[in-house]
């Protein structure tokens, strides 16, 4: 079942920059520093770069798989593993995408509940988000990508504002460089990969890119833009916090925003959290778009109905996750799965594809 996407619905290769970057920068950015610093301390900026290099390689592998097949991962699964096993793998991947969407939504709602509205019930924001997600996905992939572009441009001013705490920075913290063992650094790198999760959706939206393979450099550029942003933010955080303080700060980025003052505005984190919605929205929407698209391709049902169904399940699935423990458990679960998808599954798929192509070529000659 080879489905070619009409040119009218495709996006140009440079848009991949925005999708990848928007997917990687999300709700994780609010609190990734603490998790990495737990193992790598003041050397935490090194794991970010190491993880950046590793993921850059993973993106290269994904492009290899997609280039050979000229199609999305559902078709790849079917080609390599047959209808049943392939379908099962696709279904697992779709479930994973769905769960990332749920996770991002729930984590953002948690941030709002902790920082802004203590008594706001989860279901209120879930219902609003569900309606919004449905409206956006109904507009098609181009609308989803449009939100990614907006999600990169509009909040970009926040990144400059995040440089302002450098006023209180102490760069001597960093010295001596590399005082942790390689094991600690690698453990930090493992935790960093989690913040970069989201780019795997490329496996599904690849057919929506004009001249698909030409977008590779844009994907890499988008990824490296994220790496730069994360590294800079990490450096600002490490220069600002002491190691002990960082260990007990769940959302260091918001704490950084908190100390910024202008003559007419204080407590910048309220604005920051609100503007973060524009960053988070593309994450949620793209994840659900991917999941619904996957189901459409897998079972040949109308995406309209899938989205409607998915949005309705949101209202059932999200509100029961109602305390810090539950959110944390969900986070750890999805992050573990995400880590293995990136580090193990995609290389595995790449290897299988490589052997498959070799074998096929041999048989033909």
């Amino acid at each position, binding site marked *: 079942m080879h489905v070619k996407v009409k040119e009218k619905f495709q*996006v*140009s290769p*440079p*848009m991949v920059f925005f999708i990848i970057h928007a997917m990687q920068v999300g709700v994780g950015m609010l609190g990734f520093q603490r998790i990495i610093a737990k193992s790598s301390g003041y050397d935490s900026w090194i794991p970010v770069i190491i993880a950046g290099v590793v993921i850059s390689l993973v993106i290269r592998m994904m492009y290899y798989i997609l280039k050979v097949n000229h199609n999305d991962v559902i078709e790849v699964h079917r080609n390599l593993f047959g209808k049943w096993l392939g379908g099962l793998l696709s279904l697992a991947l779709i479930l994973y995408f769905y769960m990332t969407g749920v996770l991002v939504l729930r984590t953002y709602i948690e941030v*709002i509940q902790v920082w*802004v*509205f203590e008594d*706001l019930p989860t279901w209120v*924001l879930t219902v*609003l988000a569900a309606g*919004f997600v449905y*409206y*956006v996905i109904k*507009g098609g992939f*181009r*609308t989803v*990508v*449009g*939100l990614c*572009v*907006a999600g990169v*441009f509009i909040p970009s001013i926040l990144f400059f504002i995040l440089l302002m705490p450098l006023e209180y920075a102490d760069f001597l913290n960093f010295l001596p460089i590399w005082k942790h063992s390689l094991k600690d650094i690698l453990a930090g790198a493992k935790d960093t990969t989690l913040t970069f999760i989201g780019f795997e959706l490329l496996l599904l939206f690849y057919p929506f890119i004009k001249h698909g393979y030409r977008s590779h450099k844009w994907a890499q550029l988008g990824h490296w833009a994220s790496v730069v942003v994360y590294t800079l933010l990490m450096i600002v955080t490490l220069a600002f916090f002491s190691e002990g303080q960082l260990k007990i700060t769940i959302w260091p980025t918001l704490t950084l925003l908190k100390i910024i*003052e202008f*003559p*007419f*505005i*204080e*407590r910048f984190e*309220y*604005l920051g*959290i*609100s*503007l973060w*919605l*524009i960053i988070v*929205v593309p994450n949620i929407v793209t994840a659900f778009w991917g999941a619904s698209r996957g189901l459409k391709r897998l079972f040949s049902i109308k995406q309209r109905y899938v989205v409607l169904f998915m949005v309705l399940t949101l209202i059932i699935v999200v509100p029961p996750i109602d305390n810090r423990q539950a959110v944390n458990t969900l986070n750890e679960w999805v992050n573990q799965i995400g880590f293995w998808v990136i580090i193990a599954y995609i290389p595995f798929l790449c290897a299988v594809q490589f052997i498959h192509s070799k074998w096929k070529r041999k048989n033909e000659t």
Partner: protein
Amino acid sequence: MKFLRRKQQFYAASPRSKNVSEWLAALSQNNEDFIKKVLQTPFGNLTFWYYNSLIDHERLNVDICKPLKSQPWKTAGDVERAVYVDNTEVTSDITVANDKLLSGFAACQLPDNKNEVLFINAPADVQREVSVPETEFSVIGPQESFVEKLETNIFLVRKRLPIEDLRIRKIGVGTLSKTETAILYIDGIADDENVQTVEQRIKEVQFDEVLGTNALAQMIQDHSMTVFPQFVNTERPDRVAASLAEGKVIFMTNGSPEAIVTPSTLVEFFTSLEDYYLPWYIASFVRVLRLFSFVFSVFATPVYVAVLTYHYELIPKDLLATIIASRSNIPFPPVLEALFLEFTIELLREAGARLPTKVGQTIGIVGGIVIGQASVEAGLTSNILLIVVALAALASFTAPVYQMGNTVRVIRFPFIIFAALFGAVGIALTLAFFLAHLIRLESIGRPYLSPFYPLRLADWKDTFVRLPYSTFTKRPTQMRPESKKRMSMAKADKEKDIDE
């Protein structure tokens, strides 16, 4: 429930007799402004039939009746040669005859011919003078605006673009009004697909009375569930000429002093023609100011509501004292206070727009000063909110295209309501919704948010700022122009050394 559904009927013209002479006689019995006039000449009697209201009587007497009295005539051909009118036609077809009579022809019946009638053109011409643009006024630049007559409007455009490739296609729209609609484009620049889309959609309009250009625009627009206008409407011939040169397609109807520019983008609603007459740095400054005022106008009141309802902490201590002092006596929550003032402003604006100019000014003063001041003194609203709302209203007037001003008026309210419900998060949510909405919008199938999405960096030189003309080497890609280059930069590129 079948008995509820009555059979609906369309309007159909009343039955006509086969013979032209009988038909004319029947017409004069039914319509009292349809007149029969017998002209006695030395060579025989001529009978004229015409709609009294559609005919220029001076022309009828001087150019038609007078020569027929002195020149000998015998056949229809003789009459045609005798009169001082070029546009004449002999016909026996009643449909043609009907159209002719209704567009200002006089029917002339010769004594011995009962089956054929000669039609002579002598239309009454009531027309406003070409005057100064009212809604798109500019301090410098041409001071002409369109009038209600299509021919004059086309003349105003043609005068600015004296090329044969300026093509005009005419379509009659409306089953009753048969409104004459002209589509204008430059062949070789405008994209054929755009021209076809506009033409196709206008042809498919099925409505009895098309009120005018703006009504027609609403019938052919891509999305009707939106508060954003999808086409720029303009009363300035210079704007039309400039748009045509960029590869846009224009349409206008007879009887409306406006033209519709398609496709349009969001940014265009914030450009005024004056931006192109002023030097580029001043134009850019004004444009940035206008965009800022758009943002301010939409967000000022919602931010006030959000901050004062939920986020007191945002305001620094010294400023907070001032705000609390002004709000301490007010019994309402910020959202009611804000809605009350916004409602007052909208009321004033609407009253001002409906009343004659001189009374309108009085209303503005009475409303603005008296009601505003009184409501503060009565303790219904705070001083600060009064300033915020008044500034926001002022800012919304800077939109150079009238429809966008209306949009700004309306979209403020969902923001205020969500700000009252969810504070700053509510504002961000509404913003995200409007972003998604704008991304989905299209204007005759071309993206509305271009050049931001899809990203077309080359077109950015005429968005937030207007760069100098020397940078406008290519036409904007939004319209997919068939020829892209506007000028050759070969000469300008040659770099000159100092003192050479």
